[in-house]
């Protein structure tokens, strides 16, 4: 495997750490050998390379500043992408075009068009794509159980979902700060990638171009989609209510981009499902219901059972071998990130919108449709 981006998030995947869900990370797995690490920061990539070679006991891992060099290597089967968000889709497309299977951190893309391009490329090259929305696999299956209970009708007909967070989007900067001296061992051009070139201003964060909830949002909307049985579809109407994006599915289920009033559970990647006969709230820390017995009664064989994976990285690697689609396959990730990004668009426009989830465009609304895409700096067009 090759690891593209070995900062906090990528380093966590690679070596494990307090926040990760895999002890020892990919480095500790016997079924994976990491042959390449890549980062625009020299210190990071060299440190990661050194640690890996020390771990393997021989010099098997190379360090690269340019991810294209990783993709060129024929002996690399899969890459894990944990770069700043504005790079995710471009790198994913380039990776599958190079024949690599991909595990990519969220958000899957920063625009709907990017996400569609990743989906098309993954399908065209018959590659495996696992989105880094690990809540479908990890955290003791809590999110899966919540969605299974909801889809089994435990709270009656589903009426509302409180997604805790609302929409997110990307925006290239319109004004530039005064230029600063470029740090040694840092590639500003490769950091910016598809973003417009502008003078180095000292901000090298992973989410510097984000608007709203682009970072965490996909986790929440992934569970919204799963619980609403909406993996193959999306919103039909969107609007802003009290400053938060909201939307409705064709099924009539309404999704609010805010916490359920008074419910403490949900902030950590979670949602609250509200049905005719009760509600279920879930996040990484807890699964609760009202009435409380809803979540205490075990799920029966005859109730809805959803795709099960007990390890998100393990599921990815299994699928790399079997060529089956992973639990957070690109089609699912595309719809989850779309729900998030559409919320970002309605927040930018601050007016109700109609969305056609089959054709994936706003109905008769050029202004809104223009926000489905964002220009990419050559050569990073998709």
């Amino acid at each position: 495997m090759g690891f593209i981006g070995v900062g906090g998030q990528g380093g966590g995947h690679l070596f494990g750490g307090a926040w990760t869900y895999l002890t020892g990370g990919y480095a500790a797995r016997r079924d994976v050998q990491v042959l390449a690490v890549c980062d625009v920061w020299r210190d990071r990539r060299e440190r990661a390379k050194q640690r890996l070679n020390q771990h393997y006991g021989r010099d098997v891992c190379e360090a690269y500043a340019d991810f294209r060099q990783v993709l060129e290597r024929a002996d690399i089967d899969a890459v894990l992408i944990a770069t700043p968000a504005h790079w995710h889709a471009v790198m994913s497309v380039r990776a599958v075009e190079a024949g690599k299977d991909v595990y990519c951190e969220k958000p899957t893309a920063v625009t709907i068009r990017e996400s569609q391009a990743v989906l098309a490329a993954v399908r065209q090259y018959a590659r495996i794509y696992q989105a880094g929305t690990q809540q479908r696999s990890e955290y003791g299956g809590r999110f899966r159980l919540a969605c299974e209970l909801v889809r089994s009708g435990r709270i009656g007909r589903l009426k509302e979902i409180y997604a805790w967070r609302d929409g997110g989007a990307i925006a290239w900067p319109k004004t530039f700060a005064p230029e600063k001296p470029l740090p040694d061992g840092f590639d500003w051009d490769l950091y910016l990638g598809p973003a417009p070139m502008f003078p180095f201003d000292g901000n090298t964060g992973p989410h510097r171009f984000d608007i709203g909830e682009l970072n965490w949002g996909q986790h929440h909307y992934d569970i919204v989609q799963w619980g609403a049985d909406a993996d193959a579809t999306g919103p039909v109407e969107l609007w802003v209510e009290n400053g938060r994006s909201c939307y409705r599915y064709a099924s009539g289920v309404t999704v609010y981009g805010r916490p359920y009033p008074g419910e403490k559970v949900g902030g950590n990647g979670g949602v609250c499902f509200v049905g005719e006969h009760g509600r279920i709230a879930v996040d990484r820390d807890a699964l609760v219901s009202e009435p409380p017995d809803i979540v205490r009664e075990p799920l029966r064989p005859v109730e809805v059972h959803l795709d099960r994976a007990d390890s998100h990285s393990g599921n990815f690697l299994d699928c790399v071998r079997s060529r089956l689609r992973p639990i957070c396959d690109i089609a699912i990730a595309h719809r989850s990130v779309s729900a998030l990004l559409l919320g970002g668009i309605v927040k930018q426009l601050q007016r109700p919108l109609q969305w056609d989830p089959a054709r994936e465009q706003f109905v008769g609304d050029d202004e809104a449709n223009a926000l489905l895409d964002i220009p990419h700096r050559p050569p990073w067009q998709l």
Partner: protein
Amino acid sequence: MNTLAIILWLVAAPTEHIRCAEYVARINAAGERAGALIADGLAGDDPAAQSAAMQAAHDFYDTRRLAALLPTVSPPVQVALLGLLARRGDPVAMPSVVALARSANTEVRAAALRALGPLGDASVVRLLAEAAANGETAARQALLELRRGDVGAAMVAEWASPPLQKELARALAQRAEPATVGPMMKLYLETGNETLREALRQVCQRSRSAAEPVLAALTEGNAGALLPVCGGLVDPRVRVVLRRVGGRALCGTKDPELVPELIELARVSDDAAVRALAFRAAARLSKGAASFRQLLALAKGPEEKRLVLAGLAALRDAEALKMALSLCEDVEVGAEAAEAARQLREALAKPEWLTNWEVAGPYRQEGKNFSQLFEIVFPPETEEVGAVRWKVLPAESPVDLQKALGDGEQCVAYARTRVLSDKEQPARLEIGSDDGVKVWWNGQPVFARNVARLLTPGEEKVNVTLRPGVNTLMLKITQNNLGWAFCVRLVK
């Protein structure tokens, strides 16, 4: 092929992922022939075509045709295809999957058994249970996932095969299906099988709704079998049976250490019969006034009060006497209370002084002093039934009549008691009185001294004859002024 040709071929040959993309494009463009291309790709040995065909298979609608490919492809592709079919969940694939569930290839067999979870029905219960009993963990998981047909009934039906029971019990316990609990319970009640009992217990613990049939069936009659199953649940039906069954057992005890539990049972039981039994047992076994005090508070009706009084009477305890005295005014059990008090007084009394007295009075007559009153006949002397209200006194001697009847002068009072004797025998009454005293023994006047004086115990000595059984003694004590008291000692 010569070396040059090989080099040229290697240079010209597209890399695997490009060939994979080509194959995807061919499948996408193939229309009705897509199925055939998928079949060819999966069955062939080109990894690029296999990879492309497997991805295309995800979107290929004809599950039956995909399942039919299983025998034609290599074991690794079989494993992947089984995974795909399992995820699709279409039961048309079941026969093809069953055929691979006994494959010699370990991975294929495990994948087939795993796939039978979402794809199988009640008909594969035996197959899966046998595989699980042989250590196939995939089969164990599949037994939990089976959802088509009456799986629970099939599991109960397979119970007759002992080698499968452990796996069946594990699956039944974890499935915790309310619909299966009835048949499980019936089988358990018929066989008494411990493995099944444990499975049922787990079901009840796991799910309240699954426990419902057991709770509904629980009676005093089957409590021995079903309480180990559902006795741990907090439920009113369990509570009732536990109190009845546990209570009935408790009520049979002869162990006084269990009196607190019996009293508690009498307090909380909502079963009248058990409550009454517990009350009786507690009254029978209690050895202390504190227990009787609790029982008295719980007593419902005269019968239970009498039980308490009977128990109290057996105590040698001032506290017991106090309780008996408190009941002497009771309309229903006043007589029994008085009797109990008398017995208690007897028991508590020091041997030489009689302490179990009842008194009546004071009696006065206008213009008559104590000396004149000495000769006047008042109702106690006429033995008119109901005319006299006797008051039971605490056990003490000498008896202070001012304390018992209030301060007063120029009056008289009567005091009576009973003395038991097992035989006829001579005895001597030794009497002290403040002031004068008149004595009736077994209804006959035997002594009289009309006088004003201080109390001197044993000042008067009167010989009497004790007859077998009850002997009655009545005194008339006059009061001039100041002290008013008496004491009597029976010397045999």
